């Protein structure tokens, strides 16, 4: 365990904050499923099983300087970068005040300029060259900032992954590419997606650092991202980080994953749930008490309740706005 990681281990407050963020992501996501199953919202795509990677990574960044280019599962990332529970609920309902898109995009298509969260789309992996572009620009402007971009392991097979990583590597741009490997691309298992042993094996072909870590281990993820950030800022180029964990839900609320996944596999995945492991660690270390936990859960629940009610009652964008913002100043027309 090196210094940085040690510091983290000893910083109990930070660890509790991290845990709280993970828990918050999980509870928000769980609520969304309930809302979906009860017919309140049409669609959910989950972070469940990946919160530890997301939150630990985000904590190793400087959210006031760095840019995040998250993908649809990154509830944990956007929470840390400043999106509120209320805003997340607004986007789940597609309401006018959703800061991501004003209800224009499907849920979990994040973007919020004031929080340095770059707008994303549905076609996977397009954000990867964008991240190189942000890094190029911040390098040109001599800013001490990195761009942090995530994607699923399935998305690493798109051409844009290759082109984006290569571009960033050639020009030694300050980018962190983090692949959240949950072993499935919808129903397609890892062995039908790739033939290499690890996604991070791809780093060599770009001449960049590559590392695979246990995505359920917040210390390992934090350390990997922290080191990658330093490397980026020291002009040593980008890093490819692979965090391995499990998808605990179907691909989305439209997917029945038991059609291609066994109950046993799923049970095993649930046992390895990083949030539970982290909680146990925090309890063992007496950083988290039962009392504190109950309090945390209650606070989060209340926050979610309030946010849900607010979002439910919020209005949709007026239909007269449908044609706004196609081009600059369009609304003035």
């Amino acid at each position: 365990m090196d210094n940085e990681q040690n510091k983290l281990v000893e910083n109990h407050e930070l660890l509790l904050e991290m845990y709280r963020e993970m828990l918050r992501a999980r509870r928000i996501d769980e609520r969304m499923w309930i809302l979906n199953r009860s017919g309140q919202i049409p669609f959910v795509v989950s972070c469940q099983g990946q919160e530890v990677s997301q939150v630990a990574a985000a904590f190793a960044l400087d959210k006031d300087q760095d840019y995040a280019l998250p993908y649809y599962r990154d509830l944990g990332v956007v929470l840390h970068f400043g999106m509120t529970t209320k805003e997340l609920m607004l986007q789940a309902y597609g309401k006018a005040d959703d800061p991501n898109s004003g209800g224009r995009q499907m849920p979990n298509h994040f973007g919020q300029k004031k929080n340095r969260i770059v707008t994303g789309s549905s076609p996977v992996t397009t954000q990867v060259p964008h991240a190189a572009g942000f890094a190029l620009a911040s390098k040109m402007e001599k800013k001490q900032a990195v761009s942090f971009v995530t994607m699923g392991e399935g998305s690493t097979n798109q051409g844009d992954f290759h082109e984006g990583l290569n571009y960033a590597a050639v020009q030694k741009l300050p980018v962190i590419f983090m692949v959240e490997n949950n072993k499935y691309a919808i129903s397609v298992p890892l062995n039908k997606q790739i033939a290499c042993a690890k996604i991070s094996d791809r780093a060599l072909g770009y001449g960049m650092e590559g590392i695979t870590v246990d995505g359920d281990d917040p210390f390992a993820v934090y350390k990997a991202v922290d080191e990658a950030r330093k490397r980026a800022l020291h002009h040593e180029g980008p890093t490819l980080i692979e965090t391995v964990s499990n998808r605990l839900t179907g691909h989305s609320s439209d997917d029945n994953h038991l059609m291609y996944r066994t109950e046993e596999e799923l049970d095993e995945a649930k046992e390895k749930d990083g949030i539970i492991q982290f909680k146990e660690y925090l309890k063992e270390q007496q950083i988290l008490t039962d009392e504190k936990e109950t309090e945390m859960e209650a606070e989060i629940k209340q926050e979610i309740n309030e946010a849900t009610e607010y979002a439910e009652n919020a209005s949709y964008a007026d239909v007269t706005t449908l044609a706004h913002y196609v081009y600059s100043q369009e609304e003035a027309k």
Partner: protein
Amino acid sequence: MAVLTYIQAITQAMKEEMQQNEKVFVLGEDVGVKGGVFKATEGLIEEFGEERVIDTPLAESAIAGVGIGAAMYGMRPVAEMQFADFIMPAVNQIISEAAKIRYRSNNDWHCPIVIRAPYGGGVHGGLYHSQSVEAVFANQPGLKIVMPSSPSDAKGLLKAAIRDEDPVLFFEHKRGYRLLKEDVSEADDILPIGQAAVKKEGSDVTIITYGLCVHFAQQAAEKLESEGVTTEILDLRTVYPLDQEAIIAAASKTGKVLLVTEDNKEGSIISEVSAIINEHCLFDLDAPVRRLAAPEVPAMPFAPNLEKEFMMNPEKIERELRDLASF
């Protein structure tokens, strides 16, 4: 005859072609065990095995490109793009390669691939699961673009596409998948690619459209029927290259033409239809050709009210139709 939904007709077409010709195979994301995200390939892997029903890596340019290679070899690949919106990474393979292989090789090579993709909105898909993408490809000689409007057409045209000697883009309206049902012949019926079909005879106004909009047009036309206005409905079926003769005949017949698309207007399929009418039927027209289309925005938003505002529907068509009839 059996009642099939639009998507069942599509599955049936692939199944029959795979049974008849072992060179036919399907490839795409989640087309195997999951049977496709809409279930278009359901049951195929059980019947034909994973050699002929291939779950690919998440990479559309490879899905198209590998398919193109196999087609040049002599196979009959049916590639699925999970959503039409996600065909964009494959545009280079489709436009630079598939469309030009026969021409550039002076007929030495050819490329009989079918690329299927669900298009269109009305399913809470937001910007990237609702698009109509046909206009992107409808200027590329060498390609054919088919967009069926009913289960029977879907089956007959998909079978024809698989047997076609040239690349065919086959766009299926995803909201039509379960909405549209009808008796579909169990015979090995093939419908000719490149021919439009008169879906309803009428003498007062003409609607020319394609895909799910044909269904909406039929509903609108029925409403006006009771008021004594009869509508000719021409279903383009193949939107590229267009069936000029059928368009000219349908337009000339009534002299009042309403063109309908779910796509936004500028640069759409119906712009070409209008140009054809303009070139050939000017003196037969009793009113300017009208185009009814989506607003000029990048794609359909997610929020239900915005989506509804964007989407084509029978009411919008009825309104225009009524107005045009009384011109």
